[in-house]
């Protein structure tokens, strides 16, 4: 077994430098790598390009990096929950590349699957298509146009998993999975923080979401707030 464990978030991102492109897992505040984000804030690394479906909220998640103006450019599909984000974007301080959510997911997967480009119909005929190659295919009995979109190849990929082992194998819990396996597969260097580090062999081999070959560094996170963004409940009747 190849051992991927590191001691801390700080060690895991020690060679993450200014100006790098990083992809981060999570959907909204669900499944975000809280400990690595804290370490990025502490490290004060700047001019980052962040690939992440969302941009956190003002005081949590990627919002913390936005507050410190550490992000130069965001590549996301939905950023509606963050006032500071909107301010920086409208003022031009922050470059924002909004792309369809499925395109974001598939471009990350493409990196991990060694596919330099993929085709999707999302965004055809919209401003998302500007400057992109359009190709007509027949699929499922229908002929239509597809955009060619390129794989993301971030310098660092950072995810939070539920369980992991020293081999780098990852398991995600419920919808905290979201983009994280795709992000994990995309990194030139992939860092995983886990809620629970378990012994190699404890995870069932055929129930692993991300095989350790994709993960370069793994550590157990110190603590998790796991904040809920929209607490919606029903009353017991």
């Amino acid at each position, binding site marked *: 077994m190849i051992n991927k464990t590191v001691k801390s978030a700080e060690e895991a991102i020690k060679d993450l430098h200014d100006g790098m492109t990083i992809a981060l897992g999570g959907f909204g505040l669900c499944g975000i790598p809280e400990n690595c984000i804290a370490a990025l804030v502490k490290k004060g690394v700047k001019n980052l390009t962040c690939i992440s479906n969302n941009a956190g909220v003002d005081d949590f998640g990627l919002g913390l990096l936005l507050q410190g103006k550490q992000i130069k450019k965001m590549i996301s599909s939905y950023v509606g929950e963050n006032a500071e984000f909107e301010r920086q974007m409208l003022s031009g301080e922050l470059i924002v590349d909004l792309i369809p959510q499925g395109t974001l997911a598939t471009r*990350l997967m493409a990196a991990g699957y060694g596919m330099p480009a993929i085709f999707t119909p999302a965004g055809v005929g919209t401003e998302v298509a500007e400057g992109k190659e359009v190709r007509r295919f027949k699929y499922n009995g229908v002929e239509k146009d597809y955009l060619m979109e390129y794989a993301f190849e971030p310098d660092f990929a950072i995810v939070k998993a539920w369980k992991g082992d020293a081999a780098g194998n990852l398991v995600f819990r419920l919808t905290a999975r*979201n983009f994280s396996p795709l992000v994990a597969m995309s990194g030139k260097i992939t860092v995983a923080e886990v809620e629970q580090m378990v012994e190699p062999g404890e995870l069932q081999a055929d129930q692993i979401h991300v095989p350790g070959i994709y993960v370069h560094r793994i550590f157990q996170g110190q603590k998790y707030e796991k*904040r809920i963004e929209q607490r919606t409940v029903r009353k017991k009747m």
Partner: protein
Amino acid sequence: MLDKNAIAKRIAREVKDGMYVNLGIGIPTLVANYIPKGINVELQSENGILGMGPFPFEGEEDPDLINAGKQTVTLLPGSSIFDSAMSFGMIRAQKVDLTILGAMEVSENGDIANWKIPGKMVKGMGGAMDLVASAKNIIVAMQHVNKAGESKLLPKCSLPITGLRCIKRIVTELAVVDVLPQGGFKLIERAPGVSVEEIIKATAGKLLVEGDIPEMVID
């Protein structure tokens, strides 16, 4: 004139047995509450759920279990969880039978705009561009006119569009309106108490009105 819940109720009648359905944020989310008993459907949430259940009881919220609107939800028996690539994979592969989503504007050839107001609001398209580019059947739930009193059913979208020629049906507080394959809206049903004239007045795009227009059946 229908309130939000009544619009959702009317749309729920479009949901047929055996359908996989994706519900957008806002009125579409309410549709889940009105799907008739005996109709077996599974709700897909594009962050990675099939078989999504209702909101949890108080105290049973799980931060690891949310829907695409970031709301805490539950799972029903037979549900499954997957990553975002598979989620949009099944959407692109047209395994999801029906998509219900909100809109800012719909044009008479079925274009939809719902993700951006230049210089003002830029929340992003989320999964909407993927959904409208792939779904076999898309129903829009929205108000017929905006807050300024202007029609949202237009000859041509004025806002940046989300998808081309994709909307089949629109349900508003005033009417059920179809988009004809050759272009143009067609009035299908009136909301209770709403006249055809009111609907024509509130519709900026070309609206075909043929014969007697029935009143919606909601319950």
